[in-house]
């Protein structure tokens, strides 16, 4: 289970809506307790591709985010990106480019702008996809 504060969900949503029509992206850092993962901070990164069909995170921003996580005692829990015009599920390209099997991949679909859908996935080395449940809470 992945726990996400409502205010952090709102940050992700705003970042992705502000980035339309392009895809937006970022990282999530936090702590683990067994199979439970608590997102303590979201990092809003630049999509270097500036595209509505694909994204690449800025590695310099990625490094700064990782350093901030370490300074706060957090670990990298995963990343997120938006699908402006498609459902919240990993595309073939998402699966192909999911090189870190230890993190969650969150996808926010904005295909229905009034009904955004955020889901989290695990993608293993064989590119098998499983859903990780997300619980959005007022506090964690």
């Amino acid at each position: 289970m992945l726990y996400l504060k409502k205010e952090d969900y709102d940050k992700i949503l705003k970042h992705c809506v502000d980035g339309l029509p392009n895809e937006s992206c970022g990282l999530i850092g936090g702590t683990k307790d067994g199979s439970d993962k608590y997102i303590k901070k979201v990092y809003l990164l630049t999509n270097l591709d500036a595209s509505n069909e694909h994204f690449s995170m800025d590695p310099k921003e990625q490094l700064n985010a990782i350093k901030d996580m370490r300074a706060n005692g957090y670990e990298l829990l995963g990343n997120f990106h938006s699908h402006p015009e498609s459902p919240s599920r990993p595309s073939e390209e998402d699966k192909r480019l999911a090189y870190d099997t230890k993190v969650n991949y969150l996808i926010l679909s904005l295909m229905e702008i009034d009904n955004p859908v955020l889901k989290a996935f695990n993608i293993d080395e064989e590119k098998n996809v499983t859903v990780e449940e997300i619980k959005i809470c007022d506090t964690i």
Partner: protein
Amino acid sequence: MVVTIAGEKKKIKEGTTVAQLIIDENVENADYVTVTINDEFVDSENFDSTVINENDVVEFLYFMGGGSL
């Protein structure tokens, strides 16, 4: 000698290159990993020739990207 790898202090052999460190650290999907030493990005073409020095801070960053199609 002591270096910091992904936030943890570790002892490695003197003369260890970035390429060897990737092997020693069992980094998965190493072809898609970016390496920084003391916040400087190391070109992948130089992994074999770049030697880690005492007290260096090394990070492994996975390329993160994807698409909606």
